[in-house]
């Protein structure tokens, strides 16, 4: 679906992805290590996702997994998913991974994302309503954007509820509403 204006989507597509060029490309300066403004066939370059995607569709490059999904991260997730600092790997860990999935040959990416999310969700996020904010603040910096959104949703909802419970004037009548309208709506 068109996420054209969605800021998060735009940021996700800015993330860099390593690609391997199948064909040479002329007249572009995208490989900082190249001397000329050409890219040779077989060269490995890091490109932003949006560009890598387009080139992949035109079969000009093949895409490999970026560092944030490397073996080290996978091992850490297997060991103790809830404690891994995913945000420093990539703040959009899950969304980025989902976008990459159809482009790479690695079929285990999907399972990795799904497992990591489920484990972290169960460990961390299911305690948001009753846990004090202090306990939460320890693991908040480790959360990806998506996980943070989840946490915020619960936290704000709880805050609003507590505010309601303590009472206070509810709806205030806007002063303009006191006058009768002559014309119809």
């Amino acid at each position, binding site marked *: 679906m068109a996420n054209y204006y969605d800021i998060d989507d735009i940021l996700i597509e800015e993330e860099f992805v390593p690609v391997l060029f199948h064909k040479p490309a002329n007249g572009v300066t995208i490989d900082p290590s190249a001397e000329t403004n050409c890219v040779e066939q077989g060269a490995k370059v890091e490109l932003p996702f949006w560009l890598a995607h387009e080139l992949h569709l035109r079969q000009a490059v093949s895409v490999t997994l970026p560092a944030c999904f490397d073996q080290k991260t996978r091992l850490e997730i297997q060991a103790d998913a809830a404690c891994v600092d995913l945000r420093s790997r990539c703040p959009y860990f899950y969304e980025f991974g989902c976008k990459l*999935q159809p482009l790479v040959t690695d079929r285990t990416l999907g399972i990795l994302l799904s497992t990591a999310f489920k484990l972290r969700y*169960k460990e961390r996020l299911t305690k948001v*309503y009753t846990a004090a904010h202090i306990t939460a603040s320890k693991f908040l910096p480790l959360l990806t954007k998506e996980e943070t959104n989840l946490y915020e949703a619960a936290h704000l909802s709880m805050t609003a509820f507590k505010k*309601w419970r303590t009472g206070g004037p*509810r709806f205030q009548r806007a002063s303009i509403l006191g006058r009768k309208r002559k014309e119809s709506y």
Partner: protein
Amino acid sequence: MAGQTDPHISLFSPQEVEFMAEDELVQIVPNMNMEPLNFISGDFGRFVPQIPIEVPLWLAVALKRRGKCTFRPPGWLSVDNLTQILEAERESQSTFQALPFSYVEIARLLFDHARDDIPDMYMVRSLVEDIRDVRLHKLETNLGSFQGTSAVKISNVSAMEVNLVRPFVRRALEAFYKHDKPEADADRDTRSSRQPREANNEPRRPLRQR
């Protein structure tokens, strides 16, 4: 302004949930005479001293605040009933006891405006708080057992409780749903929006500098 709850956080504010609950009927005993009221929302009355009558909660509160009636607390709001419910809530980790859908809102309005009409008010209030607490913890625990389903049944959860967990649960369920069918969706998207293209001959333009 009407309709201005931030839609990104919560669909309904607690105040709006309370607003909806105020249409629930409660029993009052008027202490004055009044002609029937023909509201847009319904007809009520006539009001005769000492004769109990059912009216919407908002009307009851308005009359009570002006000293025109007393409340007859609903049957479920008694020490005996609530104690039973609290025990039953504590016993089961997965089921919720049947309570009025708007029990949180009704209880709060009555405590705020009609405390003298509720026998053992402090005890009753403390029981309601405890029940709410136990149920919230239970909801939280149940949140941990979501899988990638398309539908989750939540029996006997009340209006305010649903509203409280809704923003979180919606996002969580969406995330689970997305993660459990990522390949199918991604394939459909790439196929429908773009076909693999040949290199075309559009005028070249410089790439963004990094």
